[in-house]
């Protein structure tokens, strides 16, 4: 009897916390469930070193664009042009490097600048002339799709020189000439340790101010899960060729955008603007400039994604980037961003992108046709947003 009396309130506490934060945990759990399911369904192929490496390479450009799209959606807008812009930039890179023999590094810098300029052009109409982003970027989608075709002359251009390909097919070097990439494992361990360090120090600060809402059991469990996940991930990749260069770029960007959205004044202002633009404006926030900058940022990231994609295919095709915008936008909404703006997290968008990626990859391994894949992805998107709205109304 006494035991029951003592444990019940504690269990209730944990249950209540999970209940009130179900939206955040549901996302992570769904990703886990999907990964475990596909791993079994594919007889372990999903987590094989080669496949996991491919999974990262295949999704890197979606994740990178999702970072920019998240800011746009949080600001209360949308960008339909990112697929076309990335395709256009890939084509531009091919024409510069392959046809005109311009230095790959210089080309990359020019391409990123062109991406920024495209974002600026679209952002200008959206921010300062208040033309709905849906219209401006729909126009941009058509324009840049057409321009990509034009500069490629309707044909594929390639292959790229070795050093450009390294952008997406390169791996960080191992320390010793062995099968197992030690440096990758070390890096993975360091990153894991850093994440743990930040989590623990934040927890300490919360405890010091009496703010820790999360029960200790969940905190410990969550961090164990993160550690196990990251270490396993590093180990699997290290036992193949090591960490891909793209993964490093992607992680750096995820860390940067997480930081910007949660800890900087500009991030805070974007959320405030998306939450209530009028109130933000009357609080002295330059909402026009902020919107403009969000689109410039999106343009640069779309350009980066375009470069990575072109390097991965080792050729620029007129069809590159087709439909990317849909995956990117879906990733943000699956990750909990609100269509009305003001809500959404970088981590959520990244998880959303990987959810789409794992499903794409898993279903392809299982031999499910592209037609059925689209149906399933569509249903998952609707389901994710429905659950989000459902729990929001209930909570």
């Amino acid at each position, binding site marked *: 009897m006494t035991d029951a009396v003592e444990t019940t309130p504690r269990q209730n506490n944990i249950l209540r916390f999970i209940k009130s934060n179900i939206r955040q945990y549901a996302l992570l759990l769904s990703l886990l469930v999907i990964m475990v399911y596909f791993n079994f369904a594919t007889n372990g192929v999903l987590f094989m070193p080669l496949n996991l490496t491919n999974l990262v390479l295949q999704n890197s450009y979606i994740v990178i664009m999702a970072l920019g799209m998240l800011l746009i959606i949080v600001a209360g807008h949308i960008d339909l042009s990112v697929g076309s812009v990335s395709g256009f930039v890939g084509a531009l890179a091919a024409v510069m490097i392959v046809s005109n023999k311009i230095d790959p590094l210089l080309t990359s810098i020019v391409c990123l600048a062109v991406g920024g300029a495209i974002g600026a052009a679209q952002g200008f109409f959206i921010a300062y002339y208040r033309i709905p982003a849906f219209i401006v970027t729909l126009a941009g989608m058509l324009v840049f799709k057409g321009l990509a075709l034009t500069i490629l002359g309707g044909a594929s251009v390639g292959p790229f020189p070795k050093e450009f390909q390294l952008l997406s097919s390169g791996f960080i070097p191992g320390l010793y000439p062995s099968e197992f990439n030690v440096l990758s494992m070390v890096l993975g361990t360091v990153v894991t340790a850093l994440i743990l360090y930040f989590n623990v120090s934040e927890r300490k600060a919360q405890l010091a101010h009496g*703010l820790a809402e999360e029960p200790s059991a969940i905190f410990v469990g969550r961090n164990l899960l993160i550690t196990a996940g990251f270490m396993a991930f590093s180990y699997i990749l290290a036992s193949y060729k090591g960490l891909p260069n793209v993964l490093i770029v992607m992680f750096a960007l995820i860390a940067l955008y997480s930081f910007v959205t949660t800890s900087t*004044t500009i991030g*805070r202002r974007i*959320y*405030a603007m998306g*939450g*209530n633009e009028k109130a933000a404006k009357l609080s*002295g*926030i330059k909402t026009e400039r902020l919107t403009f900058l969000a689109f410039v940022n999106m343009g640069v990231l779309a350009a980066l994604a375009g470069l990575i994609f072109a390097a991965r295919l080792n050729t620029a095709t007129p069809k590159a980037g087709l439909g990317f915008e849909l995956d990117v936008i879906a990733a943000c909404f699956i990750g909990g961003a609100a269509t009305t703006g003001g809500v959404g997290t970088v981590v959520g968008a990244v998880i959303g992108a990987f959810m789409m990626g794992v499903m794409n990859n898993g279903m392809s391994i299982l031999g499910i046709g592209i037609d059925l894949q689209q149906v399933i992805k569509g249903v998952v998107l609707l389901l994710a947003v429905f659950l989000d709205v459902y729990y929001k109304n209930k909570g």
Partner: protein
Amino acid sequence: MRPILEMKGITKTFPGVNALDRVNLTVMPAEIHAVVGENGAGKSTLMKVLSGVYPHGSYTGDIVFEGETRTYRAISDSEKDGIIIIHQELALVPLLSIAENIFLGHETAKNGVIDWFEAFRKTQDLLKRVGLNEHPNTLITNIGTGKQQLVEIAKALNKQVKLLILDEPTASLNEKDSETLLNLLKDFKSKGIASILISHKLNEISKVADRITVLRDGTTVDTLDCHAETVSEDRIIKAMVGRELKDRYPKRERNIGETIFAVKDWSVYHPIHADRQMIKHVSMNVRAGEVVGIAGLMGAGRTELAMSLFGRSYGQKITGDVFVHGKKVDTSTVEMAMKAGLAYATEDRKTFGLVLIDDIKHNVTLANLEGVSNNAVVDDMRELRVANGYRSELGIRSPSVFQLTGNLSGGNQQKVVLSKWLFAGPDVLILDEPTRGIDVGAKYEIYGIINRLADQGKAVIVISSEMPELLGITDRIYVMNDGRFVAEMPVAEASQESIMRAIMKSWEN
């Protein structure tokens, strides 16, 4: 003669507020019945009860219309009986034509197919009856407010109106349009249609009304018969404001310094209708430690004045100068206005004041994020200390500063808005209706905060529609009407009667 409408003992409560308390209203057939009262006296609430916006069951008391007790559950129910209400904000679709608007929801259709010829013919008839000479195909957006008002009335006529309710119909009309409208009411009266006229313009009321019901603080204080006695405007005003001032305002030691805020010859035009001047050559000054009130009725231009001063957030073609500490300052964007030391706490907290989906902490620091950050990186703990500081200083009642502002009561939301502006560290605070929709206890706390601000040597401008409040907390009052300052009085010489008189007098000029 049997009355067409009797409202008996109507009581309507909102959480914490008794909006209507046993109100009685009797309207005779073919009569123009005026309902007057201060802002917040309960006029609009009463009309919403009558028209079914507040459904039967959400209030107590009886509505008897044409001898039968009615239980309206929606506007459509009252419209069926011929009770038509025309709101202050017109309910017309701007980009549809006059004919389309008149028949919106009542289309002349057979099996879902609209007979436009029939609609046009009927529209022409209706427009003739209200004396409006426009083609039925004209878009609403292309005609002036006065004519739009007439279209609304034509729409009401189309619904076989027996009792027409007009809520402040002439508030945004010029002299001539008002005249037309009032004559139309008289015309309806001769045809047996009764009207209820809600208005602040007492001169118009004494021109057309047969009887006047005066509301104050949600109760009926008087019903005056204009044919049995001569009803002077003073008589009405006295009935409107006759409440005693109780000890509802905290005392303050007045310690007034030099002028720190001045406005010279400020003029503003309407943001869309460029020829409508909303603010007409306003000049004012406020001294350190002084609380200055701006009194006026709804639509007088007070909010427009404040928002145009604060970063030109309202209007266009703005001219005039602003001085802070004797120096001319540029307030052409919100950021510059804030830099010059201004702050404006809006009357509409939910739309303009708060990010409702975000918590107290983030809202408090929104206008001064630099104050809690190093090199554009927000210091969470410093922000938390700031938010907690204001929470205890202003008495924001919530479990923690992590509470979403959307879940707070009106009084607590207002305190969050005030915290935000206090943290921005202004010299001049413009508070627009700081106690609107707040219960009495929270009002007292807000007054206390205003007093403290004055004690700190800030210049405080309070815009309020509640005259007792202005008389209770300010040092000096500007009276505003129709975009102008029509009077200025030290609070010692001001009274509700004198403010009302100044407003009424300005209408006559």
